[in-house]
C-alpha cells in the first residue's frame, strides 16, 4: 500500500495537467467551467487537439492510437482532463463503438472507421434504447431483415444523445425474431445516418434543452458489410461495450470541478456553518468515491468489468446530482431568472444552476439507471 504516486506517475500527471491547461483553448474550457452548453464545434475541436497529441483514445489497441497505459494512468488522464474542464472525447466514439470495432470488427471496418472515429471525422450516435424497452434493453424490436447484400431496417430508437450531430449510428437490431431467448437474435449494425428512410426527431427535455432524439428507420437499406462480428451475436458485443469502460464511470473529476467552482462562488458565505458543512460533507463524500474509483482501477488489470463499477455509477451520479442541487440552493430565488440574458443582474452561474440541476436528473436514469446498478450490486456482488 502506498499513498504517493510513483515518480513516473507523478510526472505523467504533471504532463497531463500541463497539456490540458495549456493546449486546449481557454475559450472552450470556460464553457465547461461555466456549465454552458458545448457546441458541436467545441467538442470536435477539442477531440482533434487531443487526438493529434495521442490523448483521445488511449485505451484503444496501440496500433489504432492506444497508448498501452496502466489503468492508473488512464484514470489520471481522465481526472486531469475533467479537473481542467476539458470536454471529454466523445464517448460514443471513443468508449463505445471504437472498442467494439477494434475488438470484433473486420480488418476492413477497422481501417475504414477507427482513424475517423478517433479524430471525430465521423460523429457516432448510439442506437440502443427503444421506447417500449426501458431498462429491459434486450426486448428491443427494431428489425433488420436480410435482402441480398443489404439489411432492411425498420423501427425506432430513442434517447439518442446528440443524435442531431450524428454522421453514423451504431445500433442493436433484431435479426432473428424467432430466437429462443430475446438476447439471442440481436445484431450490431453500423448505419450511415444520411441513409434514405432515416429521420431524427429531437426530444425536448425539462430543462428546455434538446440533447436527445428519437431516430426512426423506415426501410433503411444497410450494406451487410456494416454488420460488426457475427449475425445474432450483437448482445455479446453490447455487453462488452456497456461493461467496457470503467475509467470515468463515476464522474469524479467533473463533479469536483463543479464543486470547487461553487465554493469559489460561495466564498463570502462560508462563514455560514450550514453552507460550510454542506461543502465539507460533499467534498468528503466525493473523496470517498474517488478513492473507491482508484481501488477499482487498481483491480481492473485483468480487463474484465469490475462489478464495483456499479458502486461508482450509482454513487457517482448521486453526488453529481447533489452538487447540482447545492448550486440551486446557492442561487436562491435568483435562480428563476434562467432565461435572462447576460445583461442580467443575476450572475450567470445562478441562472444556469437550475436548468443544469433539472438536466442532471437524467444522470441516475440513462446509461443504466440507479435501480439497475442496485440490481447488479445485489445480484452479482451480494448473491441476492
Amino acid at each position, binding site marked *: 500500500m502506498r499513498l504517493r504516486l510513483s515518480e513516473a506517475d507523478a510526472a505523467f500527471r504533471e504532463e497531463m495537467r500541463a497539456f490540458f491547461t495549456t493546449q486546449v483553448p481557454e475559450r472552450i474550457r470556460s464553457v465547461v467551467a461555466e456549465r454552458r452548453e458545448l457546441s458541436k464545434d467545441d467538442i470536435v475541436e477539442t477531440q482533434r487537439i487531443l487526438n493529434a497529441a495521442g490523448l483521445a483514445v488511449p485505451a484503444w489497441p496501440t496500433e489504432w492510437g492506444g497508448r498501452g497505459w496502466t489503468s492508473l494512468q488512464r484514470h489520471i488522464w481522465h481526472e486531469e482532463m475533467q479537473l481542467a474542464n476539458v470536454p471529454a472525447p466523445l464517448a460514443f466514439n471513443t468508449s463505445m463503438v471504437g472498442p467494439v470495432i477494434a475488438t470484433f470488427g473486420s480488418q476492413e471496418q477497422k481501417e475504414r472507421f477507427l482513424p475517423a472515429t478517433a479524430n471525430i471525422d465521423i460523429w457516432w450516435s448510439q442506437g440502443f*434504447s427503444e421506447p417500449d*424497452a*426501458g*431498462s*429491459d434493453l434486450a*426486448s428491443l424490436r427494431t428489425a433488420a431483415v436480410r435482402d441480398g447484400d443489404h439489411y432492411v431496417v425498420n423501427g425506432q430508437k*430513442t*434517447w439518442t444523445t446528440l443524435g442531431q450531430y450524428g454522421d453514423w449510428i451504431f445500433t442493436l437490431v433484431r435479426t432473428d425474431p424467432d430466437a429462443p431467448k430475446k438476447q439471442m437474435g440481436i445484431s450490431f449494425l453500423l448505419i450511415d445516418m444520411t441513409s434514405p428512410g432515416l429521420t431524427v426527431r429531437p*426530444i*425536448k*427535455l*425539462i*430543462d*428546455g434543452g434538446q440533447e*436527445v432524439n428519437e431516430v426512426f428507420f423506415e426501410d433503411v437499406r444497410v450494406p451487410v458489410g456494416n454488420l460488426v462480428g457475427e449475425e445474432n451475436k450483437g448482445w455479446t458485443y453490447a455487453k462488452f461495450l456497456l461493461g467496457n469502460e470503467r475509467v470515468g464511470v463515476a464522474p469524479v473529476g467533473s463533479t469536483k470541478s463543479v464543486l470547487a467552482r461553487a465554493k469559489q462562488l460561495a466564498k463570502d458565505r462560508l462563514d455560514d456553518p*450550514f453552507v460550510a458543512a454542506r461543502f465539507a460533507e460533499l467534498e468528503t463524500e466525493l473523496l470517498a468515491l474517488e478513492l473507491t474509483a482508484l481501488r477499482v482501477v487498481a483491480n481492473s488489470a485483468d480487463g474484465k468489468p469490475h462489478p464495483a463499477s456499479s458502486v461508482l455509477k450509482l454513487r457517482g451520479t448521486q453526488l453529481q446530482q447533489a452538487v447540482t*442541487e447545492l448550486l*440551486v*440552493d446557492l*442561487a*436562491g*430565488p*435568483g*435562480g*428563476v*431568472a*434562467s*432565461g*435572462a*440574458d447576460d*445583461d*442580467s*443582474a*443575476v*450572475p450567470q452561474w445562478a441562472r444556469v444552476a*437550475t*436548468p443544469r*440541476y*433539472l438536466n442532471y*436528473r*437524467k444522470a*441516475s*436514469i*440513462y446509461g443504466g*439507471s*440507479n*435501480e439497475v446498478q*442496485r440490481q447488479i450490486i445485489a445480484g452479482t456482488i451480494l448473491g441476492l
Partner: protein
Amino acid sequence: MDFELDDEQTALRDAVRRLLASTYATIDGRRASTAKAPGWDEGMWGRLAEMGVLGLPFTEEDGGMGAGPVEVALVAEQLGRVLAPEPFAEAVVLAGGLVAAAGSAAQKEQLLPGVVDGTTVAAFAHFEPGAAAGAPPRSVTATQDGDGWVLDGVKEPVLHGAQAGLLVVSARVDADGTDRTGLFVVAADAAGLDRVDYPTYDGTRAARVTFASTPATPLGAAGANASDVVALVTAHAQVALCHEAVGAMATALDLTTEYLRTRKQFGVPLKTFQALTFRAADMYVSLELARSMALWATLVLADGDPDAAVVAATRAVVQTSAAGRHIGQEAIQLHGGIGMTAEYAVGHYTTRLTAIDQLLGGRTAHLRVLADHVGEYDVVDPLAV
C-alpha cells in the same frame, strides 16, 4: 381543531376545479397558455375574477369577497394540481395583499378593484440579485424628491414584472441614518422604469426591473417601516405557494402511480417491483405530512396573530421544500427517461416544484430561522400557537 371544509368551501373548491379543467385537463393547456403573452390564459383570469376568486383575500369593504386564507389555500391547491400558470399567489395574494395590508384607504379604493376584477395584474418587485429570500431591500433605494419620492436600482427577478400593470416595490429608505423598508407603488408607464422580460425555466415569465429616478408613491404612510407587513403578507403568499406545491405533488404522485400500474418492463407491470412501490409509499408520506403542515399554517394565518403566522409559514416552507424535492425527484426517477421529456407531464411538475422551492427561499434558510429561536420554548403545540 378541525380540518374539514364547510359546504361553501367545498363548493368553491369544486367550482375552481371544474373551471380549471376546461383549460388545464392535460399539460397541453399549460404549454399553450405559457407559450403566448402574457404567459397565462387571460380568459381564464377573467373567469376566475368573475367567480370571485381574485377577490378572496380581500375584505368586502375593500371590494373583495371577505374570505380568508382557507379559501386562498383551496384555490392555490387546485392551481397546483393542474399547473395552471395564472399568477394567483404572486399577483393577488402577495402584491394585492400588500396593497390591502399597507395601502391607505384611498389607495385601496383606487387599486384593489382592478386586482379583484382581473383588469390589473399586480407584481411585487422585491427580490434583489444575490440577496437571500428573506433579506430586506438593499440595492433599490427610495429618496424624497420634493413632495414625492423616486426609486433607483435594480430588482430581479420580478415574476411577471413586465406584464404587470401595477408594481409594488420594496426599497431601502434612509431614515436618519438607519435603513428602513419602504413600500412604493410604481405605475407601469412611470418615467425611468425599464423592464426586460424573459422566460423562467418553469415556463413562466420574469423581468429585470430597473429604476432610474423613477417616480413612486409610498404605499400607506410615507416613511413607515414596512418590514412587518412585508413579512406577514409574504407569509400569506408562502402558505399559498405551499398549497400550490401540495397540489402539484399530489398530481406528480398520481402520474407516478398510474405509470407504475400501467407501464410494463421485463414483461410485467412496474408495480410488480417492490423497490419502486415502496418509494411511491414514501412519496405519499411526504405529501401527506406537507399537506398537514400547509393546512395548519393556513389555520394559523386565519387565526390572526402576525408573529405566529410568520413562524407557521416558516414551518410550512421547511416541510414543503423537503417534500417537493423528494417527490419531484422521485417522480422523474420512477418514470425513467420519459420523465425527463418536456412532452410528458411529470417533468413539468418537478420543474414547477423546483421553482416554488426557490421562490420560497429553500429549506435551509427557513430552518436556520427556526433554529435561531429553538431555545425560546419547550414544545411546539399546534393547538396553542
